């Protein structure tokens, strides 16, 4: 048997056995355990779970590749997907923990004393989560198909069965502890090849330092070399940006605010016992995330240098083995336009002969660095772990939104806990099946819809929750009007440019040069403005709501004795 296939089967199989074992051990017995793991997760475990929950197949497989081809502009993802945790830690997480219910629509519905607000929140949460989860199931399928040579569809079904098992039985409790294991698998799988490649190219064991240092066998630093090679073959210099500054600003802002507004991330802070645990687990989460995110740009730079040095201007017969392997998967394509038998990698499309899929940067990394077969198996397990952990977190949001916010709080408030748990399990199961369907038959626009999810989260949840905590006077009229206005304008802009008039989707036609990816920032501003304006002209919220706000602002109330 091929050693790569052998090790992939062993390592992926062992990781699945681990996840199922954890699921059996941590069965949820009531709705509190199913929704928020009984509110008893230690901050360190919650930090790891949040990191795994957050880092998806896109972070693990695609991000380093995107950066490798974007150069400095790749920072929109690096800053955008980490900076949101500052907003989360300082503006939302501790207060939502103090509020202490189960879901984001719970907070919106209670704070704005309105089932309309709750319904708007349910629709947003379900839509955002479905948009996101389809890509994750597809990611599981892609990893399987590339490393185990099975059809993508079969990979998706295997992923569905595993997620079904621990999400439906274990709920949040099962998901949390599998996510802890998944974080360990994915970070190990990401760092090992990065460290080896850094050693190989720079002699430095820390990739984050290595990618600033001198290349072995030359007197230039990695980045100088990369700038030189890029401009020599017609690309933009690696360390300078090509995107317009204003657009970089708006995209980064939209990704940050969107991150802070994503329900599957927010809900993780409902699972810790205390307010101070919420602060602490936000810190742990960001440390664990930055461990991967600060490594990604190093991998990107190393891979890009490698690409220039090992295959550009090289005779096709003399390319390294990994080139041929990945050529078979169609991720790298050589088209000998001038028929000289030499690979010319150029910026100019009319003479460029090499087409490279972004994902190859992470997937082929171990082979490019000449690492042993077990490392390749590890990368496969890491990719699956990243996709499954995010998928499970999203599926739970869908099932709690339906079972708790829609059925229990809106339709049938007198329902027993046992019955609610049953409905939560059934909706989790149904959500897995629907997500799997979209994974097998992906709507052709998965990539665009992720920008959509962030835009909607930025334009709806973030302002509504933040105002709910920081502005006592905010009432239901303002909050609902703000959410609806933010959602409508963001949806209209993104749908217009990415689905209806794709021919106009360029900087000449965008408003003020803001791309659809960055438009969530505008949606957020509209939400804030409309909410504040409408609330000025309508009645203030009832006194018990104002008391609720005062209540969530402090970690605990003093007893009568203490306050004397």
């Amino acid at each position, binding site marked *: 048997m091929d050693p790569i296939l052998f090790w992939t089967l062993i390592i992926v199989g062992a990781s699945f056995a681990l996840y199922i074992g954890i699921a059996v051990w941590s069965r949820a017995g009531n709705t509190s355990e199913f929704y928020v793991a009984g509110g008893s997760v230690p901050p360190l475990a919650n930090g790891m779970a949040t990191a795994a929950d957050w880092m998806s197949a896109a972070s693990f497989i695609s991000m380093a590749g995107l*950066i490798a081809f974007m150069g*400095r502009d*790749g*920072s929109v993802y*690096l*800053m955008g997907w*980490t*900076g949101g*945790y*500052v907003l989360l*830690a*300082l*503006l939302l997480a*501790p207060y939502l923990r103090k509020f202490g219910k189960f879901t984001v629509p719970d907070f919106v519905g209670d704070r704005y004393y309105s089932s309309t607000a709750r319904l708007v929140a349910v629709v947003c949460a379900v839509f955002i989560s479905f948009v996101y989860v389809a890509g994750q199931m597809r990611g599981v399928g892609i990893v399987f198909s590339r490393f185990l040579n099975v059809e993508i569809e079969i990979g998706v079904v295997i992923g569905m069965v595993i997620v079904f098992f621990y999400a439906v039985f274990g709920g949040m409790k099962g998901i949390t502890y599998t996510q802890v294991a998944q974080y360990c698998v994915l970070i190990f799988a990401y760092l090992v090849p990065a460290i080896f490649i850094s050693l190989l190219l720079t002699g430095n064991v820390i990739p*984050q*330092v290595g990618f*600033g*240092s*001198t290349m072995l066998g030359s007197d230039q*630093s*990695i*980045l100088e070399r990369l700038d030189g090679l890029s401009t020599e073959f017609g690309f933009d210099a690696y*360390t*300078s*940006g090509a995107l317009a*500054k204003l657009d*970089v*600003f708006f995209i*980064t*802002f939209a990704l*940050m605010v969107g991150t802070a507004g994503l329900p599957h991330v927010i809900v993780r802070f409902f699972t810790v016992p*205390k*307010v*101070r645990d919420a*602060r*602490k687990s*936000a*810190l742990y989460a*960001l*440390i664990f995330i*930055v461990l991967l*995110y*600060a490594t990604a*740009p190093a991998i990107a730079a190393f891979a890009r240098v490698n690409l220039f040095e090992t295959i550009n201007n090289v005779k096709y017969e003399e390319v390294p083995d990994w080139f041929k392997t990945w050529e078979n998967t169609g991720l790298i394509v050589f088209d000998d336009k001038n028929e000289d038998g030499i690979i010319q990698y150029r910026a100019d499309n009319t003479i460029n002969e090499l087409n490279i899929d972004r994902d190859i940067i992470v997937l082929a990394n171990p082979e490019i660095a000449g690492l042993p077969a077990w490392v390749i198996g590890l990368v496969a397990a890491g990719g699956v772990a990243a996709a499954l952990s995010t998928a499970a977190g999203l599926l739970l949001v869908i099932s709690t939104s339906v079972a708790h916010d829609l059925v229990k709080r809106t339709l049938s408030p007198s329902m027993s806990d046992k019955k609610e748990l049953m409905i939560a399990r059934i909706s989790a199961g149904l959500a897995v099946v629907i997500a799997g369907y979209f994974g097998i038959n992906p709507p052709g626009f998965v990539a665009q819809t992720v920008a959509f999810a962030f835009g909607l989260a930025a334009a709806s949840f973030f302002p509504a929750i933040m105002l709910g905590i920081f502005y006592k006077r905010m009432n239901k009229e303002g909050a609902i009007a703000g959410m609806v206005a933010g959602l409508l304008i963001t949806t209209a802009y993104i749908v217009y440019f990415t689905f209806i008039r794709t021919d106009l989707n360029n900087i000449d036609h965008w408003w003020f040069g803001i791309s659809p990816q960055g438009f969530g920032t505008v949606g957020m501003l509209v939400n804030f403005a409309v909410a504040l304006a409408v609330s000025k002209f309508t009645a203030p919220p009832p006194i018990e709501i104002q008391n609720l706000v*005062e209540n969530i*602002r*402090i*970690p*605990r*109330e*003093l007893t009568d004795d*203490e*306050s004397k």
Partner: protein
Amino acid sequence: MEHKEMAKAYWKKNLTYVGGLLFIWFMASFGAGILFVDYLDNFTLGGFPLGFWFAQQGSMYIFVIVIAAYMVLMNKLDKEFGFDEQD
């Protein structure tokens, strides 16, 4: 002090901390990593053009420090006002 006034004073101090820390958050990312990135590239740090380093490394490390500082400051503030949670 009465409970209500205590809560008010606590909240005011909290807002000061959050404001200051968000200023650092903004300067590290949108400032150093985007608006002033080209100017900072005139300097180097450990082989990196400084602006590029902020955009792809430094901003993220500063985010971690900002959250750590917030945690320490708020835990202290909770104790000062007696709002810290008992075990």
